[in-house]
């Protein structure tokens, strides 16, 4: 169908994109993703956990449903490509060790409440005085200062305060979040981006800086173009449940979730050239199966304009699609939409994704050795390809203090020193 696609001819392993940079990752689960991304790109990420381990290790779901600090699935997902050390930042000795680590680090990422590292003499200013090249990234619910800076956050709070929830859910019923926490994902992703922008500047000037990431503000981009509706028209868009809002100047809502035989399908008739091709292909498919009403085959999609359609027109048009899709399966729709150029995808669950031939063909899934479990586990692969070679994960998430000896020996600490620190509760 297409000519041979441009191919990456000079393979670049993702793990070599960044130079030899060291990242100290002090985050809790609200910041894990940032260090994971930098690790994927080749940074040497050292996860610094309190003695006893990151509290996030205690949150499930767990591998084989066995609660254990090495078996938390969110922990495993977002702490691969990191080494792990323990360190108490509540003791002066521990604080001093962190300062020594920070002198030699390129990045430090943290997600403590604003002010709490400062109180230990470990804030941005204190560490920048020791290492002016340091990029110091803080991930918090609302940011480092401002009227809500001291407020406590959570995924649900961030989803609400960002406005996202006001746009999600059925009208007349409560606003909804996504059941799998997302706020830490957005914040962690944008923290990595901001850190890399600061890195670029540091490489040019020799000076690091403080990167202040707000979880609330990170989620604003999940609202897509919605803020423009307020800016131009002073309209609060309201949540439409399974219908898309904001596409029509008449206020019409368009169904996007259709029931099918084994679940749901997300399909929408768009306008414009892309919409015309898709709508025609859909009606063609229906006609081939003898399921297109006569009037539908005569609709001129070239002149159909979503932006000016009324609710009545939309409802009439969508009815035959409701009938047709009810008799299809997710897999049938996935195949037909790809083959025929129909704009839509199944509402996939984890199994559908795992079984998707597209991901298999691209070698997306990656086997990662877990000697401590005696198995290999299949992980989702990289966020982008920088070469034909797949695979972003070079090491599984660390055990508690797994790399204490390795990392602290760089500071000249002996095995005896480490034992002593351990006994005093510092490691």
């Amino acid at each position, binding site marked *: 169908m*297409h000519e041979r*696609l*441009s191919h990456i*001819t000079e393979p670049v392993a993702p793990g*070599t994109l960044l*130079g030899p940079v060291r990242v100290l990752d002090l985050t809790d689960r609200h910041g894990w993703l940032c260090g994971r991304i930098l690790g994927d*790109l080749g940074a040497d990420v050292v996860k610094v956990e309190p003695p006893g381990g990151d509290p996030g290790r205690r949150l499930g779901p767990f*591998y084989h449903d066995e609660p254990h600090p090495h078996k938390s699935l969110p922990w*495993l997902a977002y702490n691969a490509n990191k080494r792990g050390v323990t360190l108490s930042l509540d003791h002066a000795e521990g604080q001093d060790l962190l300062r020594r680590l920070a002198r030699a680090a390129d990045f430090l990422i943290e997600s403590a409440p604003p002010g709490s590292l400062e109180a230990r003499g470990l804030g941005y200013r204190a560490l920048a005085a020791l290492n002016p090249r340091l990029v110091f990234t803080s991930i918090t619910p*609302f*940011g480092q200062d401002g*009227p809500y800076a001291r407020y*406590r*956050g959570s995924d*649900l*709070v961030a989803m609400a305060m960002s*406005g996202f*929830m006001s746009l999600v859910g*059925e009208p007349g019923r409560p606003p*909804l979040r996504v*059941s799998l926490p997302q706020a830490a994902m957005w914040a962690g992703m*944008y923290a*990595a*981006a901001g850190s*890399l922008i600061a*890195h670029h*500047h540091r490489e*040019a000037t020799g000076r690091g*800086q403080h990167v*202040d990431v*707000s979880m*609330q503000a990170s989620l604003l981009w*999940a609202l897509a*173009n*919605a803020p*423009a*509706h307020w*800016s131009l028209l002073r*309209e609060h868009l309201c949540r439409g449940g*399974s219908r*898309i809002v904001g596409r029509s*100047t008449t206020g019409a809502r368009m169904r996007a979730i259709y029931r099918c035989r084994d679940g749901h399908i997300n399909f929408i008739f768009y306008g*414009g050239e892309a919409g015309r091709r898709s709508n025609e292909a859909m009606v063609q498919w229906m006609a081939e199966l003898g399921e297109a009403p006569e009037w539908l085959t005569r609709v001129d999609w070239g002149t159909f*304009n979503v932006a000016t359609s009324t609710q009545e027109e939309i409802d009439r048009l969508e009815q035959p699609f409701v009938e047709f899709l009810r008799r299809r399966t997710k897999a049938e729709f996935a195949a037909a939409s*790809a083959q025929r*150029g129909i*704009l*839509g*995808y*199944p509402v*996939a669950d*984890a199994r559908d*994704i*795992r079984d998707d031939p597209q991901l298999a*063909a691209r070698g997306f899934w990656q086997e990662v050795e877990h000697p401590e479990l005696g198995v290999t586990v299949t*992980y*989702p692969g990289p*966020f*982008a*390809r920088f070469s034909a070679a797949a695979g972003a994960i070079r090491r599984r998430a660390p055990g508690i203090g797994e790399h204490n000896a390795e990392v602290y020996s760089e500071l000249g600490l002996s095995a005896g020193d480490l034992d002593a620190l351990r006994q005093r509760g510092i490691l």
Partner: protein
Amino acid sequence: MAGTAGALTGVKVVEFAVFAAGPMVGKHLAEHGATVIRVESRSRPDGFRVHYPPYKDNIPGLNRTGSFALFNDSKLGVTLNLKRAEGLALARRLVAWADVLIENFVPGVMARNGLGYEAVREINPSLVYLSSCNMGQTGPRSGQRGFGSQLTSQAGFTYLTGYPGEDPVLLFGPYIDFVAVGFGLIAVLAALDYRRRTGRGVHVDLAQYEAGLQFVAPALLEYEANGRTMTRMGNRSPHAAPHGAYPCRGEDRWCVIAVCTEDEWHALCRAVGHPEWAEDRRFESLAARKAHEDELDALVGAWTAQRAPEEVMETLQEAGVRAGVVNRLGDLFSDPQLVHRRVWQELPHPELERFHYEAPPFILSETPAELRRSPLLGEHNRQVYRDILGLPDEEIDRLIADGAID
């Protein structure tokens, strides 16, 4: 032109991109000082200039759409027609000038237009070339066209949103496009670092689908390890109760409350004036509260319903309980915290009058983002073709008359 103090000053970017997933990457580079040239065509304008509301005063027009403005601030806008030989020649000169190229067409389109990676690396071997599309550059479904509002469902997000046993609900819009934006930005920045150290270019093949899956990794591992497909559960959480959106005074006003520990539970009981709830056997532990969650929600909801959401937030936060207002779209523009961070930057625009541009969610202490308004269609043709490519004015006039610059 670009500011002089931005973190990315000196980085040169050319964009052959449409809608959000490509252009938003360029926006983030531009607001930190990169010179970003957005290449458009008057004969085939971006869909966000044409058939997507909102329009200023509800009147369509190429320079009257909010979506284009929101995703394209701080850039230079030029037009050219790639179907014309001289238009393509101009495009190739821009590619030779650039450090970074961003495109988000269906695989094959750039190659058909003479701007595929193989072709352009001969002009500019050290180019960082970002290809962002739904399914990736390879694989049996690579040619599939699609929009983020549907791809969000393919990547598992929609299945995880809504109530158990009911139809799933939409995540408003093209949620996954913006996940792909963040990862696209990260990929470009990492590739620039590689280029700085090695002098070599990089082609980035970003499947928006695969980028999106990073955000649902625990659900994928849960299926892998335990054979279960994680599903939607309203606003509830296995780790916290109460945990939900509760009705407040006013029309369609809501707050959220998330109680994650026993200390927070006791603090909530005191703050709402019901210390007896803390003594109630039905609520004596997380497991007990989860077992009686409907009753618990009814009690909490009866208290919140008497109050404005702001009052609930202030009262509970004062007591150390995680709570917030469900901001409506318009509330975001007066949210004191977002205002404090200067997230909204209202700038004058010749046809929109004033528009709220959106600053990034990270603030760099030494080189904060600087936003400039979005370009009109072809606004910077003369500036770019004369000052950057060095074309004489009469040559530019001829190219305009011939339609190569359309």
